[in-house]
């Protein structure tokens, strides 16, 4: 019993370490793929790690008008995102603590990180910080209803809102082509693009443009604070990729009862799928242009409509109209 508990603890700790360590690599893969497709040499795969190390070595310059909130927010944002990322089942479905938050709580944890970031953006009192914060919160109001519809569809299909439960359900019940799940997948991809400030919602490579959202919020950060914010956004990308993998491609994931060998297979499968997701994201980003801010309601609205149709189809397949 105690040995079990220790193993479980180690597994949970291992997952926290894995997501933290692999996050910059995923970002490196995205950047590299984009660069190669644009016929550029591109940065080395490990550049994101070097950037973080460089930022940690630099001194932090803080605006005179900044308050304690500005200095403490990066730590909280990083911790909230890290915990949220560790709660998504990655290589095994039944780890120690991923029962503690279901998907509703997970979305809310990310919401807390976002609210803190938006507050930090307004703290210094500049126009760029404000523009980033207000647009970020506007995008959140578009994305969250769509996310809720996805959660509802999954809950109807799997009968639970616990991610591990949903993953177990899909592992145990290999599904054929279910239209409602396919629509949910598209919907979740759009939400993930919006939440991670990726093209076409926001351009992570841009800087000093009036169109930026995420970068505008963090414009005043430097040194170790900026490193934490950057690391948190890398973690968030891995979180959403893991979420997509866990919900729509859970094959290979170790079930709750698996031993160490199952976990090893699960880990390899997860990393492979994660990197594949990063490549796909890179390909997607070079093939589409960034949208104007006020075109976003149309784009994220697609996620909402697909989410809604998915639920109605889920009602049909469950035969509730009969």
């Amino acid at each position, binding site marked *: 019993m105690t040995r079990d508990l220790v193993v479980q603890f180690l597994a949970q700790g291992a997952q*926290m370490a894995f997501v933290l360590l692999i996050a910059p690599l995923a970002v490196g893969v995205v950047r590299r793929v984009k660069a190669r497709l644009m016929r550029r040499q591109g940065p080395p795969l490990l550049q994101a790690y070097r950037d973080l190390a460089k930022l*940690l*070595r630099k*001194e*932090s*310059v*803080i*605006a005179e*008008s900044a*308050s304690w*909130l500005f200095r403490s927010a990066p*730590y909280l944002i*990083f*911790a*909230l995102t*890290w*915990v949220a990322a560790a709660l998504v089942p990655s290589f095994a479905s039944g780890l120690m*603590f991923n029962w*503690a*938050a279901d998907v509703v*709580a997970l979305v*809310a*944890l990310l*919401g807390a990180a*976002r609210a803190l970031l938006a507050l930090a953006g*307004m*703290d210094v*009192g*500049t*126009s*760029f*910080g*404000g523009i980033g*914060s*207000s*647009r970020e*919160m*506007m995008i959140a*109001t578009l*994305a*969250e*209803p769509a996310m*809720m*519809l996805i*959660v*509802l569809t999954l809950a109807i299909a799997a009968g*639970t*809102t*616990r991610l591990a439960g949903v993953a177990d359900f899909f592992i145990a019940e290999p599904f054929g082509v279910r239209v409602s799940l396919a629509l949910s997948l598209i919907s979740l991809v759009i939400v993930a693009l919006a939440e991670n400030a990726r093209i076409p919602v926001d351009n992570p490579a841009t800087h000093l443009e009036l169109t930026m959202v995420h970068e505008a919020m963090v*414009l005043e950060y430097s*040194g*170790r604070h900026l490193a934490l914010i950057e690391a948190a956004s890398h973690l968030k990308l891995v979180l959403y990729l893991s979420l997509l993998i866990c919900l729509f491609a859970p094959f290979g994931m170790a079930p709750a009862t698996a031993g160490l060998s199952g976990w090893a297979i699960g880990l390899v499968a997860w990393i492979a799928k994660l990197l594949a997701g990063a490549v796909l994201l890179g390909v997607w980003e070079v093939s589409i242009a960034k949208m104007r*801010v*006020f075109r976003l309601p149309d784009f994220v609205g697609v996620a*909402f409509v697909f*989410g809604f149709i998915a639920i109605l189809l889920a*009602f049909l397949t*469950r035969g*509730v*109209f009969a």
Partner: protein
Amino acid sequence: MRGPALAFVYPLSALAAVVLGVVDLQVLLSGGEAATRLPIGLPTIGFHLRLDTLSAFFGIVINGGVVAASLYGMGFDRVKELTPRVEPLFPLFAAAMNLVLIADDAYAFLFSWELMSLASWALVVARHTDPECRRAAHLYLVMAAIGTVALLFAFGGLAGPAGGYTFDTVRTHPPQPMVAALVLMAALVGCGSKGGLIPLHAWLPLAHPAAPSHVSALMSGVMTKVAIYGFVRIAFDLLGPPAWWWALPPIVLGAMTAVLGLLYAVLDRDLKRVLAYSTIENVGLIFVALGLALAFRANAQHAAAAVAMAAALLHVLNHSWFKSLLFLGAGAILHATGRRDLDGLGGLIHRMPRTAAFFLVGALAISALPPLNGFVSEWLLFQAVIAAPALPQAALHFASPAIGAMLALAAALAAACFVRVYGTAFLGRPRSAEAAGAHDVPLVQQAAMGGLAFLCILGGLMGSVLAAALAPVLDKLAGGALPGPGSGPTPFSLIAFDPARSIYDAPIIALFVAIASLTTLIVVHRLSERRTRRGPAWDCGFPDPSPATQYTASSFAQPLRRVYGAAAFAAQETVVMPPPGDIRPARFSVVVVDHLWRAFYAAPGRAVIGLSERLNVLQFLTIRRYLVLMFVTLVILLSIAAVTT
């Protein structure tokens, strides 16, 4: 009465509220009941009082708010801030709210309800020299009267032709289904108008902010809960077994109220009015939860009914804490700066550090962010919505995704709204001389806010304990309860339905976040360059010292206005840009139309005035014509009597 005598009002109110709260708590935990009949009131009815677990729960909510508001009142300056127009009415208002909860017959209920309305009206009109206040008070009086008339009908329907006005008689003789449905609608109008359910909400954002801030805290944080109590008492206790379609009006109106309330809040620039609009939103959420509880109960899905009811009741408790906290914080800002327009504030986190910290807790809690208390009830509400597709009625199926999406939209808008409020009032640089010269409030007022902030944190971590304490009420109203604290992985796991389905464990998550942030703090400080330099803001290289270059509350709302305002308020932006060479300044204007006000207030108001002008002729007739009118009336009445008999 002079200042020194008035100063005793608050300590005594606080003491009385503590005593009443302890009694309530004792009744709730022991599940006991106490009833009595006073020989006053109407001759044959008397004045019945009863304290059961439902009243006790709401009593705890109310007396908690009264204690906080009284503590805040104790910080007032004895000479300058106490007036005979406010202080004597404060305990009357608090007592009337307590009385509504323990009323056990229709007469006692309506009498205390009216007392509560009038006392709060008098508090709203305390600053009667301000025409805005007078307008707010006038509208409030009209709406309160409409609400009471509706409640009068509701109790008439409950009493039936036999006239059994005591609640015991009503319970044993529930009305016929058609009458019961009418009673429910009347209760929805009566309680909804007090709670701010759209379209009966228009008085609330005017009247709540017009009162002194600690009274605003009571009205918004607590009096709206009395309205909820009235609805719960009538719909779940007195009306007998529900029909499933009763659930639709509260759910639909509640969801509309939640979204529209926040859209109003996000566009408003007055701090206290924003808070009042957000109260409307929260009342909407509670009505959605109550509607879902009705639907589940009508289908005998008691576990789901318990989840929905727990969501409603916990949100009642949570909202009373954070809304009181936020209104007291708004009062502190008003006291320190003399302003409540968001665009004139800024940078208060430097000058009012404690108020800023407490307000931040309230703002994050009301945005339903974990691990604070607002999220506990929001989580339960989402679980109830997720269970709604299991209901057998097709209308409720189709409603459930729409309701879920609207609630998610409301949650996201709430976060946007309170980031905007906090970001413009407390963060950034001061936008006016008053904001630059602000100072923190007296210690006892800080204590009032600090206590509520502590409760918001504690309630967030101990949500499962609170839910367990509600078990007797849930059992009575919903016919079920949440799984007990022993059935989850830890004693503090909040469980909806069963542990395999949905768990939210706030202490574990909070622990993980705490460990993660502390580890990060230590590791980053070990590894990194620790030096920190203060410098001018970077702002892309062109920092402007003028505070006018910051984002304001209006500019923060602009994206939301463009996305949602066009549909909800026919919002239109016009930019007049003079051609090059012309030295006229460019102009920007926004037109926002309040459709609800036009349809439900302005149009009926015009109709009433038009009609009364027509009928005004009747006032100036000759005596002959009056005699003719009377004769005609008599003939008509007699012929009606002849036909019907």
